[in-house]
């Protein structure tokens, strides 16, 4: 019997390594190790030559008082994150979900599929399309319509409204995530509730206001938290389309870190700023966890089904 138990324990250990081992290795390699390396580099003077000559806190001193560009970057980042969330990822995603679930199923799926396309296309292709759309000459797609067909003056989105441009750029992709989550949440609302509201005297808008929206409280919290965090660290589309310009007008924090580190070779300073971003991310996640009551969100479903 004792042998049997030992064998069982050994097998359990083997299973543990077999099933969880790969995930743990990946987690360590790509999530924990980089943070450790980042912390280490943040306290050095690593420059373009990659040589470390001393351990110092100079990077953080520079971050707190010496970097004149930072204030502008912070404001841009705030506008970008809040704007994208407020206009696209939450509001427009919600609008898409409500509209595509209130028309017939086939048309609804069709429109949702269209809005998923930007997310599915390769980033570089998507960025190239945008570069063509916003081209300030009469050959840009937008200008072909507004200038060529409607006769308006040439539009130069990149120079006139750069922050709005990066909001739209990311929002077209971001909206689909909320759309999918909200759609499935709306589908989970018992149909009788809609019928009851109709009979109780609610108009179409009142049904949305009093039945649909209250049931979406949890998905709304989730999308807000999740998308805020992912917007905070993403910069690939901005980098591809505007490269942070004109001048520094669309340089969000994550892009600024990238530029300092990899374009200017200030690896140590970049690492220090990335560390701040990690700290901000953790702080934001924790406070949203608290204020939006994420804990109850991650517990069993809150939509009541009778």
């Amino acid at each position, binding site marked *: 019997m004792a042998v049997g138990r030992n064998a069982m324990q050994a097998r359990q250990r083997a299973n543990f390594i077999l099933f969880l081992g790969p995930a743990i290795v990946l987690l360590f390699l790509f999530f924990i190790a980089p943070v450790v390396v980042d912390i280490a580099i943040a306290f050095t003077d690593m420059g373009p030559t990659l040589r470390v000559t001393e351990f110092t806190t100079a990077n953080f001193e520079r971050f707190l008082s010496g970097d004149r560009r930072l204030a502008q970057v912070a404001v841009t980042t705030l506008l970008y994150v809040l704007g994208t969330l407020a206009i696209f990822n939450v509001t427009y995603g919600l609008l898409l979900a409500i509209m595509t679930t209130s028309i017939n199923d086939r048309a609804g799926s069709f429109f949702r599929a269209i809005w998923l396309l930007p997310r599915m296309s390769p980033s570089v292709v998507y960025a190239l399309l945008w570069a063509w759309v916003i081209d300030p000459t009469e050959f840009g797609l937008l200008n072909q319509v507004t200038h060529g067909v409607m006769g308006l003056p040439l539009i130069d989105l990149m120079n006139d409204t750069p922050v709005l441009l990066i909001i739209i750029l990311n929002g077209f992709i971001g909206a689909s995530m909320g759309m999918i989550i909200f759609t499935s949440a709306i589908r989970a609302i*018992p149909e*009788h*509730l809609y*019928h*009851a*509201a*109709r*009979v*109780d*005297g*609610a*108009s179409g808008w*009142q049904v949305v206001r*009093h*039945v649909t929206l*209250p*049931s979406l*409280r949890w998905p709304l919290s989730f999308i807000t938290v999740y998308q805020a965090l992912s917007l905070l660290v993403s910069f690939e589309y901005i980098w591809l389309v505007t490269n942070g310009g004109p001048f520094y007008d669309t340089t969000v924090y994550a892009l600024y870190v990238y530029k300092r580190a990899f374009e200017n070779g200030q690896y140590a300073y970049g690492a220090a700023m990335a560390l701040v971003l990690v700290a901000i991310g953790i702080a934001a996640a924790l406070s949203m966890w608290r204020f939006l009551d994420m804990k109850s969100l991650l517990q069993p479903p809150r*939509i*009541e089904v*009778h």
Partner: protein
Amino acid sequence: MARIELEQVSKSWGDVVAVEPTDLVIEDGEFVAVLGPSGCGKSTTLFMLAGIYAPSGGSLRFDGQVVNEVEARDRNVGIVFQSYALYPHMTVHDNILFPLRLSKMPRSEAMAKVERFAALVHVDELLDRRPAQLSGGQQQRVALARALVKEPKLLLLDEPLSNLDATLRLTMRTEIKSLQRRMGITSILVTHDQMEATTIADRIICMSKGRIEQIGSPDDLYLRPNSLFVASFIGAPPINLVEGEAENGALYVSETRLPFLNGGAMGQVTLGIRPENISFAEDGLAGTVAAVEPMGRETLYILRTPIGHFSVLQTSSTKRYEVDASVNLQFAAEDTLLFDRASQKRLDGVQVHLP
């Protein structure tokens, strides 16, 4: 209060016909039950009355006014769903207030009404609770208050009692009936439970496969069913049905001859006798006891006879028969129901008796 008229009202989705063209009049203040198995079109009919579904054809009138195109919110009907459909994020108070809030009733008046109707259905102690904190019976009362609070012309009840336990169902049945009497609202109850229909309603509309099979009082449906469907759907334990051939003034079931008492018929005929109308006797149709099911006040016997199996309901106080006992059966000619198998209709005035 309203008089409801359906004239050739039908509903179909594509090729699927849910309700065939139907004529029906429900008088002002009447309480009717729509009874039928699931999928017979009874809920669809109710939803057409509520304005949730638009009829595919015919005209639907409230007090003489055609309401086919009138939206649910403008019809002034109240509805209680099987699932109660209370708004989960609102308190009991807000649930009951909801219809009044949408009708823009002055706040003080609306508040007073909520109090009054909550008291009427005995949920005035629960006004601050949410639906999830209520028992099934309490949710049901709240749903009823919400349906009644705007004093609708028509109250629709879609299987309102089927999610309740047996005792509570009995209480709610009585309460719904007395509330309806007191308020005098024209009410329609949809149910698959014949007990519920017969105890609560003045009139029963029996539906099957999208068609009305019979309209009548509970007694009409039980004693004088128009069709085989009504005869077999109503009554528990179900009616005994025996298929035979009618010729030469008698019904032949295999070798057994059952003469027609009055009238007569030809062709394929089904004989129906309710289990409680069969009794044990000294002579008559010979059979053996196949099973005994004591049900408390009554005992159900399953008997094997030359013309098939019969269930017989006897008061438990009479003599007990054991399994395999030999017995003789008697039934009175006036308790026999005969149906034409081709048309499924009852043959009026035709009866058979044991030779």
